[in-house]
C-alpha cells in the first residue's frame, strides 16, 4: 500500500473527513512544538502556540494553494504565532558576544560534547539555544535539523536569502561560544581529575 502524502490528507479534509487532520497533526506535532518551544522558551506557552497553530492552519486550509510544501506553510504559521506570543510577553534576549573561532578549538569542543551523557547533552544544548535570540534558534533548527533550504527558510521567517545566510553564520558562532562557556569547564575539570 502506498503511503498517503500531505496533499492526500488535505483533499480528504476538504471533502469533509476531519479525522484526516489528526494524521497531519500527529505527523508534525513534535516539530511544531519544538519550534514553538525554541521561540517562546517555555513548555506551557509552546503547547498553546502549537495548538493555536494547528487550529489556525485547519481554518485556513482552503487558502493553502500547494505552491509550497505543507510543512513550510505550517512552520510559517507557528513562527508568526510564536512572535505574537513573544510580543505579548515582551521578552528580550541579550545578544552573545562573538569572538574568533579556531579550527582546533572546535575539535576540543566536539570531544567535550561527547563526554556529556545523552540526557545531559540534550539539556545543555537546549539551555544554550535559549540564550540565542528567538529567530536564530528557529533558523538553526530549520536548517540543521529539518534541513530546509535557505530559500524555504527565508519564506518562513520573511527575511531575504542573504540575510538568512548571514544570520545562520552568526548564530552558529554564538551557539558555539555559549556551549564552550558551559561545556569546556566541565570537560577540563574532568580531565584534571584524571
Amino acid at each position, binding site marked *: 500500500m502506498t503511503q498517503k502524502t500531505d496533499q492526500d490528507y488535505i483533499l480528504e479534509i476538504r471533502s469533509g473527513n476531519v479525522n484526516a487532520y489528526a494524521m497531519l*497533526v500527529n505527523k508534525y506535532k513534535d516539530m511544531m512544538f*519544538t519550534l514553538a518551544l525554541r521561540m517562546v522558551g517555555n513548555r506551557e506557552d509552546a503547547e498553546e502556540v502549537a495548538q493555536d497553530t494547528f487550529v489556525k492552519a485547519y481554518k485556513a486550509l482552503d487558502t493553502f494553494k500547494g505552491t509550497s510544501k505543507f510543512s513550510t506553510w505550517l512552520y510559517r504559521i507557528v513562527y508568526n504565532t510564536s512572535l505574537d506570543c513573544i510580543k505579548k510577553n515582551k521578552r528580550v534576549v541579550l545578544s552573545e558576544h562573538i569572538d574568533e*573561532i579556531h579550527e582546533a578549538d572546535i575539535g576540543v569542543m566536539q570531544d567535550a*560534547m561527547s563526554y556529556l551523557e545523552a540526557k545531559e547533552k540534550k539539556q545543555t*544544548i537546549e539551555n544554550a539555544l535559549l540564550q540565542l535570540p528567538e529567530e536564530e534558534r528557529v533558523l538553526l533548527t530549520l536548517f*540543521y*535539523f529539518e534541513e530546509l533550504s535557505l530559500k524555504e527558510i527565508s519564506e518562513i521567517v520573511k527575511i531575504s536569502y542573504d540575510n538568512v545566510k548571514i544570520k545562520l553564520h552568526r548564530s*552558529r558562532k554564538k551557539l*558555539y561560544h555559549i556551549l564552550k562557556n558551559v561545556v569546556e569547564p566541565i570537560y577540563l575539570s574532568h580531565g584534571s581529575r584524571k
Partner: protein
Amino acid sequence: MEAENKKLDQFTKEVIQDAGLASPSVDFLANVMAEVSKEKTAIKVYKPLINKVGWLIIVALFLIFSFVLTRFSLGFSILGDWDLSSLMIKKHEMKIDIPVTYAYCFFFLLVFVIIQVNIISKRFSRSLEN
C-alpha cells in the same frame, strides 16, 4: 577560514541533531482535534448557488430571448392578448395603463423568483440535514 567554517557547520549540525525534538503533552492531539471539531461546522467549501452550467443556460436563454424579441418583435407575444390592466381594481374610474415592456419584465421576474425560491429552499433543507 573555509576549513573552520566547514568544521563549525558540522559541529552545529551534530549539536542541533543531538538536541532532537521535544514532544508536547500526551493529550495534545486530542486537544487540537477537539478544537478543530468545533470549527468543523464553520468550514464549508464554497459552492455557488448557480453553477457554471446554470450561468451558461441563463446566458443562452437571455441571448435567445433577446434575439427572438428583437428579430420578431412585431408579431411575437408570449403573453398573448392578456390585458393585465383588467386585473387591477378600478375605483372611481381610475385607469392604469400597463405597458407591454412592463408586462414582459414582470413575467420574467416571476419566472426567476419561482425558480430561485425552489433552489434556495432545497439548499436550505440540505444544509439543515448536514
